[in-house]
């Protein structure tokens, strides 16, 4: 699904490698799944011509003459290209090479100049014949200009594509939609997708779900809903993933009633809710600390014969711990193991969190030992949870020991555990040690200096007050 970071997608959409592997246009589906498979070495090579300030350019090793277009000036670019073509006898023949040159130039220039530059390359070096990716580079550039108000630039490129024998297809829709959404032009993206739909390049499910997810996240549920409704006219109906996206969103806004309604709608439409849907709803309840409902979702899963995965159990244990039902949570740790899922750091951390909330900080510390015995290595969140629990549970000495160990292993502090540790130390009059913790927080870049300092300042202020009232020695 569209969970792949943009950087990867860019590689997939533009990387010549995929052109080489799958003659001409790869379908969006392949494109979606391809990225992690792209051979690393080749990608490096191809990226060496990429824009000079690209994220990946640290990896750039120039094997072929590199093109770094520092100026957006068209004639400079032209002469650079000319000098390259005239200087070399065996210019690469595959279009991918020229595509990356174009891509590099397009990252600094305007759309119009890029088009001129493309024409120039074709004219100067006839062996190069632009392919679909060439035009997608232009399309992406046209969609990425954030300050543009209309879609006219995009239309120009689309017309150019049609005239060059590459009428926009699903991939074009996908490239355009993602580029537009990326720079905050969601409305334009919706408009363009609808428009392209009328021209027979319907978005596929990935583009569609990407749009829905983006609209829900960046705009509003209603905008997503109206998009879904409009797309129904083109025969595209929400699928299970779409519903999961919507449910996830309403769960994040704590509107569980709407989530349950969507779950009903989903069943009515003939979809069978899967593990992801239930996990999402369970997460919603867990965040609201409604342990009973979390269990309810789990029971429902079992009734519907959906097999819980380890995320289900993690969510379950998290939810139960959060709502204070540590006993039940421990029981599910057992169940989880029996079902063949190995508890991970998240499982244990949730459980420790629950135990600390109950005031059983030492029990949580014991769990750390058990966890390590079972070969599960704790992460920084585990340590921070424990540190906070120990300091809150008046086990300062244990807490300080843990802190020293964290310091040795360069584990960062979190705001919560940092503040709690400071307060606990100051309460015992160990101000100098609190200062050292402050030093460590800054040195390890755990939290911003300002936050670290203002916590220290307010803690000391509180200490002074407490001393005046005779509460602390």
């Amino acid at each position, binding site marked *: 699904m569209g969970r792949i970071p943009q950087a990867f997608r860019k590689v997939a959409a533009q990387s010549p490698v995929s052109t080489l592997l799958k003659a001409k246009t790869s379908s969006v589906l392949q494109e979606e799944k391809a990225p992690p498979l792209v051979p690393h070495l080749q990608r490096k090579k191809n990226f060496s011509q990429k824009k000079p300030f690209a994220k990946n350019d640290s990896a750039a090793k120039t094997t072929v003459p590199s093109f770094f277009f520092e100026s957006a000036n068209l004639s400079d670019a032209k002469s650079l290209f000319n000098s390259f073509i005239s200087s070399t006898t065996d210019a690469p023949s595959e279009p991918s090479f020229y595509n990356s040159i174009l891509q590099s130039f397009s990252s600094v220039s305007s759309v119009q100049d890029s088009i001129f530059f493309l024409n120039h390359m074709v004219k100067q070096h006839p062996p190069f014949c632009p392919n679909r990716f060439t035009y997608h580079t232009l399309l992406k550039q046209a969609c990425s200009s954030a300050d543009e108000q209309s879609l006219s630039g995009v239309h120009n490129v689309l017309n150019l594509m049609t005239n060059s024998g590459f009428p926009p297809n699903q991939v074009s829709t996908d490239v355009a939609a993602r580029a537009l959404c990326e720079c905050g032009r969601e409305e334009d993206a919706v408009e363009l997708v609808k428009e392209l739909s009328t021209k027979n390049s319907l978005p596929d499910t990935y583009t569609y779900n990407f749009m829905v997810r983006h609209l829900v996240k960046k705009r509003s549920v209603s905008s997503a809903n109206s998009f879904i409704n409009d797309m129904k006219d083109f025969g595209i109906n929400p699928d299970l993933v779409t519903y999961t996206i919507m449910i996830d969103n309403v769960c994040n806004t704590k509107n569980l009633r709407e989530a349950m309604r969507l779950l009903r709608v989903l069943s009515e439409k003939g979809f069978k809710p899967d593990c992801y849907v239930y996990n999402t709803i369970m997460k919603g309840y867990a*965040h609201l600390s409604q342990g009973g409902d979390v269990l309810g979702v789990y029971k429902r899963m079992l009734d519907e014969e959906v097999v819980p995965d380890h995320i289900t159990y993690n969510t379950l244990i998290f939810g139960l711990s959060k709502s204070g039902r540590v006993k039940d949570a421990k029981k599910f740790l057992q169940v989880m193991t029996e079902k063949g899922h190995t508890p991970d750091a998240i499982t244990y951390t949730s459980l420790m969190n629950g135990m600390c909330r109950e005031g059983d900080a030492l029990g949580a510390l014991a769990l750390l030992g058990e966890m390590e015995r079972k070969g599960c290595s704790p992460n920084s969140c585990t340590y921070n949870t424990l540190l906070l629990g120990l300091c809150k549970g008046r086990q300062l000495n244990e807490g300080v020991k843990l802190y020293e160990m964290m310091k040795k292993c360069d584990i960062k502090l979190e705001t*919560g555990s940092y503040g709690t540790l400071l307060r606990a130390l*100051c309460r015992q*009059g160990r101000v*100098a040690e609190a*200062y050292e913790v402050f030093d460590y927080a800054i040195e390890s870049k755990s939290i911003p200096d300002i*936050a670290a300092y203002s916590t220290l300042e307010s803690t000391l202020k509180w200490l002074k007050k407490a001393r005046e009232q005779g509460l602390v020695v």
Partner: protein
Amino acid sequence: MLPQRLKKAVTDNPKKVASLIDIVNLPTMLRDFMGQSQSSQLSCFKRVWGYIKDNNLQDPVNRNVVNCDPKLKSILLGKSTIDLTELPPMIKLHFPKQPGS
């Protein structure tokens, strides 16, 4: 859920954040100590605390107390010893609230 809280804590009070990181003209005695004419409250604090550590000014018996050397004395109201608890408010004295800001 946690990131939200985290974000809130830092940007809780923009005025307070500004008072810590805004660079202001230092009073004369601080200028001599800091070796620069402009600084923020936060970096001034860090400098003073660093100075204490570098020169081992913490009392060997009670590390919560600092025995000021003449240079430190000059910026901390002439006190010969100071509790670490007092340090932030002392620094703050040199950074009075600016009218209208």
